[in-house]
């Protein structure tokens, strides 16, 4: 790795863009094989790990997450921890107790979320690999808004050991980079079984690498798109047909519209139980008065230190699991997930991959985000949720620009067939002219 990149340059850039919550000393950077960052919900022994939450202020784990450990063992140097929505709860990376990352193409706009800092670092630092985490679209969304590739593997492909859980049956560790070849080269390092996470064991190896011969576009995914996004997407589809020789078909996937509510029920149900562990004793923020009864103590620490979105999701997840409501919400959501998986499987009998736009708009300005209701924000994820809910691997591919802001398309493959996505991304990278952000180093 060239010595042109220095920690002082990164610190300077971070003043403007806020992509890192914590930056290391850069030891070993000169001459290293590659540099990378980790989203701040992945544990690291030499950096604090807060997941963007005040309740984990100053928490310094005694171990590295499996993905971080494996990249370090392969000669990677960890530059720092990237900023994010608290525990991954958000679409715009604004729900953080700490840094809010700013878009590399316009600092008044969001990077997307929740891996917003990761996407920003991937866009602005040449040759950088950012580890991100996706539960419902937290890699695809920021990758689309920041104009980089964002790869989310099949659920279970990468060990979640050392990941601060949001939704156990949904969380996936993936990668973001400006060049898909970086991901294709480094992803195998973190993939594969790890006995510390049983969900990573017993899966087939990565599929054979080939470009999909055919793709299907669900008609539901392109309805109501703003004209700029639609034009950009249509032009990209023409390029896929004409320049890459891919056959394109239209599909009907009617279960897509139910994926969004099902996702939020499962995600918040799991989150509300996962977040029960934060009570001010074992790590992070502590209460002021140990003389309080334990119920009062835990309640005071949690109420004082969780942000508004974390509280909203805890309430929602607790409600949907309550006696008498579980079948109406949680069980129905699990059934919808299965139906979405089956719908994808039917599609994969006809085509090798499914393509949609990634986000239904370009990165919004911060004042626009502030004016959105909670439901409007949840609805913004409707294109990234189906593959995330069903655990299908997917890749955001930068495909154009509207008003100078990046637009992305999302390619989805069957479980364990990640290879075809990365191959398609690399091939696309040779045809697509990326506009580099001015501030890039």
């Amino acid at each position: 790795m060239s010595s042109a990149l220095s920690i002082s340059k990164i610190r300077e850039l971070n003043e403007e863009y806020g992509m890192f919550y914590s930056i290391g000393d850069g030891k070993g950077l000169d001459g290293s094989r590659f540099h990378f960052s980790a989203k701040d919900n992945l544990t690291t022994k030499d950096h604090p790990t807060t997941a963007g939450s005040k309740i984990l202020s100053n928490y310094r784990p005694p171990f590295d997450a499996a993905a971080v450990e494996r990249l370090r063992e392969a000669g990677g140097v960890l530059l720092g921890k990237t900023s994010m929505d608290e525990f991954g709860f958000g679409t715009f990376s604004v729900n953080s107790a700490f840094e809010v990352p700013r878009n590399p193409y316009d600092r008044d706009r969001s990077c997307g979320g929740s891996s917003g800092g990761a996407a920003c670092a991937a866009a602005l630092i040449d040759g950088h690999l950012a580890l991100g985490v996706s539960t419902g679209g937290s890699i695809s969304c920021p990758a689309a808004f920041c104009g980089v590739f964002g790869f989310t593997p099949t659920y279970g492909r990468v060990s979640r050991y050392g990941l601060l859980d949001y939704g156990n049956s949904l969380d996936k560790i993936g990668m973001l980079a400006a060049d898909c070849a970086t991901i294709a080269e480094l992803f195998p390092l973190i993939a594969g079984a790890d006995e510390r996470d049983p969900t990573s064991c017993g899966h087939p190896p990565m599929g054979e690498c080939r470009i999909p011969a055919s793709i299907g576009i669900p008609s539901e995914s392109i309805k109501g798109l703003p004209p700029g996004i639609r034009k950009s997407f249509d032009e990209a589809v023409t390029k896929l047909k004409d320049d890459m020789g891919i056959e394109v078909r239209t599909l009907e996937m009617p279960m897509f519209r139910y994926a969004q509510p099902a996702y939020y029920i499962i995600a918040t149900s799991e989150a509300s139980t996962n977040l029960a562990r934060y009570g001010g004793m074992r790590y992070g923020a502590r209460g002021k008065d140990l003389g309080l009864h334990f119920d009062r103590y835990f309640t005071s620490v949690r109420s004082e230190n969780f942000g508004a979105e974390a509280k909203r999701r805890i309430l929602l997840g607790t409600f949907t699991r309550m006696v008498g409501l579980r079948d109406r919400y949680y069980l129905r959501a699990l059934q919808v997930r299965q139906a979405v998986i089956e719908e994808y499987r039917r599609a994969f009998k006809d085509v090798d991959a499914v393509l949609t736009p990634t986000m239904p708009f370009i990165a919004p300005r911060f004042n626009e985000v502030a004016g959105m209701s909670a439901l409007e924000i949840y609805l913004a994820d409707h294109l990234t949720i189906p593959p995330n809910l069903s655990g299908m691997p997917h890749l955001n591919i930068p495909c154009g620009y509207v008003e100078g802001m990046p637009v992305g398309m999302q390619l989805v493959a069957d479980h364990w067939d990640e290879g075809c996505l990365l191959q398609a991304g690399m091939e696309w990278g040779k045809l697509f002219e990326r506009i580099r952000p001015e501030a890039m180093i």
Partner: protein
Amino acid sequence: MDKETVRRVAMLARLELSEEEIESFTKDLGEILEHFSMLDELQDLDDYGFNPVEVIDVLRDDEPHQEIPAEELLRDMDTYEDYVRGPRLS
């Protein structure tokens, strides 16, 4: 969704909310649950799983080992003679 339900759920979730928060969460959760009601249209689904892919049971060898020394785990905790301090139980 009404304010009383939000108060009750918050108590179960060990959260104490201000009146302003209760007001705002009642409105938000009401809108969100109204949106979720579209799932009521689906009455003929049967299959479900708890994970999106098949997860096999994996057991480690039953050999005791400690990856992280106890003193490191205790480092960030409030301790007294190697015991973790906690709030009152009664």
